[in-house]
């Protein structure tokens, strides 16, 4: 509980940032603010650490200054709330509400059970993310260990959002308790589910919102990652948030505020994991394609600060280089030309998609049922652009596997399920937005939500 209390200033900061930049429905602002707050606070803590002045007082002081400035701006600008009236849902909506509640309760029990078995998470949590957080929380004499391979640190060049936020919270609390990274995992899992529900509620109505929640909560692959304390669920949050905010922006004719907010979220993806960098590039291409040059400039400007921070960290702070890629182009071409590598990677992707859930309730089966019942919207093709960045990220992962210098079988077995999870919530979101609106029904009181057009 104390962990959550120590995280509250960060979450308030994130909410204020979302509210200032692009006011949305409050049900969406809150989960977006949770994740963004963790991102902003981690960046502040890292900068304080880099400057050699990180401490409990400087951290809370810096956050207080930002919160104070944000609150002052909120009062000054008097941002109007974006509460939109939604249509009355069908009479059977209670089934979905209760089902989502039960499924969520089961996931909470799952999370709790996993955490009691492994309070420090999975292997990589201790070997990479949380040990780096411990070094960062150690102050001026030890934070360098988090970014240097000389002292046996694994992957010192991995981006720092998760580690720096855990370190920031440990610094505030004054100890290195195991519950802090666990609490952050819970927050990001909750924020991902809530963002999925709220964004679909905004764009497509309550029925699709709860269906999205059920699809995600039925995905064993996602649920099993929730408690391991890696950076994949946080990355899936930023991937989903970028896509969702852009989809809302596209439905509202690309307002600069929403495009900028999407840029901030996409840049936070890059600050979370290496995969976030190609994702950011793919989102930029999607914005340029659908929103035009003006939107692309707006997106780039908003993404720039955190992107620059990430690149500065990689270029000037992190020591050593990942030896994952071949040293020469000819070696890379040889690997690309090996058909056995292609087939092994394809088989692994297929297996890991298959293992997302049990065959009798596989998310693809549930999607197929929904596609059969609702049908695809006539304008579904014009919404395919939403898949560009998540699919692009999967393609980039595929390319990395092709030329990885780590043993391919080992590399696939230790990461392939997680790269799918990184984009899974965004894929569910995009899929449901392609379905046809609910048909008019006699028991559907009032006007149904009108799915805004997302094509230019």
């Amino acid at each position, binding site marked *: 509980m104390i962990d959550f209390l120590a995280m509250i200033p960060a979450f308030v900061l994130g909410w204020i940032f979302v509210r200032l930049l692009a006011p949305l429905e409050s049900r969406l602002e809150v989960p977006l603010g949770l994740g963004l707050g963790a991102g902003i606070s981690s960046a502040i803590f890292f900068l304080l650490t880099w400057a050699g002045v990180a401490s409990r007082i400087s951290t809370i002081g810096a956050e207080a200054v930002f919160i104070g400035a944000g609150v002052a701006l909120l009062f000054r600008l008097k941002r109007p709330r974006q509460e939109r009236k939604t249509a009355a849902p069908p009479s*059977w909506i209670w089934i979905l509400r209760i089902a989502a509640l039960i499924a969520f309760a089961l996931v909470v029990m799952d999370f709790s059970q996993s955490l009691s078995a492994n309070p420090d998470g999975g292997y990589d949590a201790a070997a990479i993310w949380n040990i780096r957080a411990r070094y960062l929380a*150690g102050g001026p004499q030890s934070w360098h260990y988090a970014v240097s391979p000389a002292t046996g640190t694994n992957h010192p060049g991995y981006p720092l959002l998760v580690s720096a936020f855990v370190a920031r919270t440990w610094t505030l609390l004054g100890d*290195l308790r195991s519950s802090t990274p666990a609490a952050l995992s819970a927050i990001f899992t909750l924020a991902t589910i809530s963002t999925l529900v709220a964004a679909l509620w905004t764009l497509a109505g309550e029925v699709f919102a709860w269906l999205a929640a059920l*699809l995600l909560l039925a995905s064993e692959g996602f*649920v099993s990652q929730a408690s391991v304390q890696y950076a994949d669920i946080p990355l899936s949050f930023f991937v989903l948030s970028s896509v969702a905010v852009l989809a809302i922006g596209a439905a509202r004719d690309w307002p600069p505020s929403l495009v900028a907010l999407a840029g901030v979220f996409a840049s936070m993806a890059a600050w979370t994991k290496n995969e976030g960098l190609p994702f950011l590039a793919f989102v930029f291409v999607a914005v340029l394609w659908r929103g035009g040059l003006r939107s692309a400039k707006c997106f780039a400007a908003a993404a720039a600060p955190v992107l620059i921070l990430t690149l500065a960290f990689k270029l000037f702070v992190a020591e050593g280089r990942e030896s994952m890629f071949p040293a020469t182009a000819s070696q890379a071409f040889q690997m690309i030309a090996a058909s056995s590598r292609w087939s092994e990677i394809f088989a692994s992707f297929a297996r890991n998609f298959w293992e997302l859930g049990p065959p009798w*309730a596989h998310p693809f089966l549930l999607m197929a*049922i929904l596609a059969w019942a609702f049908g695809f919207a006539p304008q579904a093709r014009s919404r395919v652009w939403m898949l560009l960045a998540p699919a692009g990220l999967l393609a980039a992962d595929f390319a990395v596997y092709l030329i990885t210098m780590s043993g391919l079988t080992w590399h696939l077995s230790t990461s392939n399920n997680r790269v799918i999870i990184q984009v899974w919530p965004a894929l569910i979101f995009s899929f449901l937005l392609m379905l046809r609106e*609910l048909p008019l*029904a006699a028991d559907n009181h009032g006007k149904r939500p009108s799915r805004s057009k997302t094509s230019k």
Partner: protein
Amino acid sequence: MWNRTALAALAVALLAIAAAMRSYELSSQQAPDPYGVTAGQTRFAAALELLPATGVIGYLTDMPVGENTGSIAYMAAQYAVAPRAIVPIGKLPAEWALGNFARPGNFAERGAQAGYRVVRDLGNGVVIYRRTQP
């Protein structure tokens, strides 16, 4: 009225709950602390009171760090003593060293060979060393 979409939603709801229940059952089957990370924090708790709060600490072990068991034991020890950094003896200069042994043996002799003397044997294969005068 129950139309096709309502029936589909009902089917998805029931199947999703069943899938979530299965996930919950699977999570009950996972091995507790398979890498000894949580146990390591208990194992090395007494060592934290003797070692300096920061800095590089040497690491002495009978489990080769290059092998699977040794690398997992090293990782668990690294995590337990962080924010101190522990590195295998000889890699970086270190005034203090942490012994992490799986089997009984002459720990003083092991330390002496590396230029360290025993400060305290904490039992259970955990030993605190300090560099002997050069």
